């Protein structure tokens, strides 16, 4: 029937269409890798370390949930929760201070004593793409002398790992 040429052609061309699709995928991927290699916004194809698996802005170091737990247990590293008050009150890492970006200045002054004795701090928010922790880390780089570590996977990963949490208002 005259109205059905295309479906029949589609069946005949199935092999060709699949080959074409493969060519599109491989060619585009190769082009992407090439552009990424020369682009100033390029990112490493394979992250060099486990902690660096989520790309962070230059000058920031990421840590994993296991590294965060080790740092918390060691006790000498202050943890800073960048999320809003409701989330902080609903649950945070044990001993973590609340330092949301919206209230950075007054709260940072309150915390200055505790922070200036520590060689490093860890910041976190909910998850890898929440952004608040990175924003806080960028602010801290200007105000704080020590090293700022970003607990990349944040609160969600901490809860998922079954590690202990604390509820309540800011200490």
């Amino acid at each position, binding site marked *: 029937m005259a*109205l*059905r040429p*295309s*479906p029949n*052609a*589609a069946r005949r*061309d199935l092999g*060709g*269409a*699949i*080959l*074409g*699709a493969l*060519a*599109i*995928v491989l*060619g*585009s*991927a190769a*082009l*992407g*890798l090439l*552009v*990424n290699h020369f682009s100033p*916004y*390029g*990112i*490493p*194809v*394979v*992250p060099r370390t*486990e902690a660096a*698996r*989520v*790309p*962070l*802005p230059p000058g920031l170091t990421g840590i994993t949930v296991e590294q965060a737990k080790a740092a918390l247990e060691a006790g000498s590293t202050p943890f800073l929760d960048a999320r809003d008050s409701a989330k902080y009150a609903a649950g945070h890492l044990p001993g973590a201070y609340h330092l949301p970006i919206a209230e950075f200045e007054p709260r940072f002054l309150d915390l200055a004593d505790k922070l200036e004795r520590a060689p490093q701090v860890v910041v976190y928010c*909910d*998850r*890898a*793409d929440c952004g608040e922790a990175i924003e806080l880390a960028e602010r801290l780089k200007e105000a704080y002398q020590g090293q700022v570590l970003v607990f*990349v996977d944040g609160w*969600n990963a901490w809860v998922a790992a079954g590690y202990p949490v604390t509820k309540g208002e800011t200490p």
Partner: protein
Amino acid sequence: MTSRAENLLNHPALGAACRLLLGGLFIYTAISKLSDPADFARFIAAYRLLHPDLVNLAAITLPWIELIAGALLVLGVWPQSAALVIAGMLGLFLGAGFLAVVRGLDIECGCFLPFLGSDELDWTFFVRDAVLLLLAAQVWLWPSSFLPGRR
């Protein structure tokens, strides 16, 4: 299928509309993602589906596959192959979104389509991707082209 319905489904205007809409959307989202691969990688990582070593590779290559497939679809060059690639990606996105919801992940979609519903993984995400899959099916079944000598 009645010939009336089939007349409608294989109408060249419908084919062109499907290709323009689907290809245009993929070009648009690809450009949003291309401008900041690090940001896109964070969205992919949040789905927790890929091995951490593969997240950046996906963030580097996926937008280019979207861009090229979208452009080929708009132009009508290899329309069936381009539709196949796009349908494959839509299937991938649907599967990833479904798994994220099933596993209770509180994540953003990372779809980069601010004008088509929220960026949450809610019902609009699944309906939108399913509709886009139908557009890809139209192009697959009745491929068309703007280029001379092709149909």
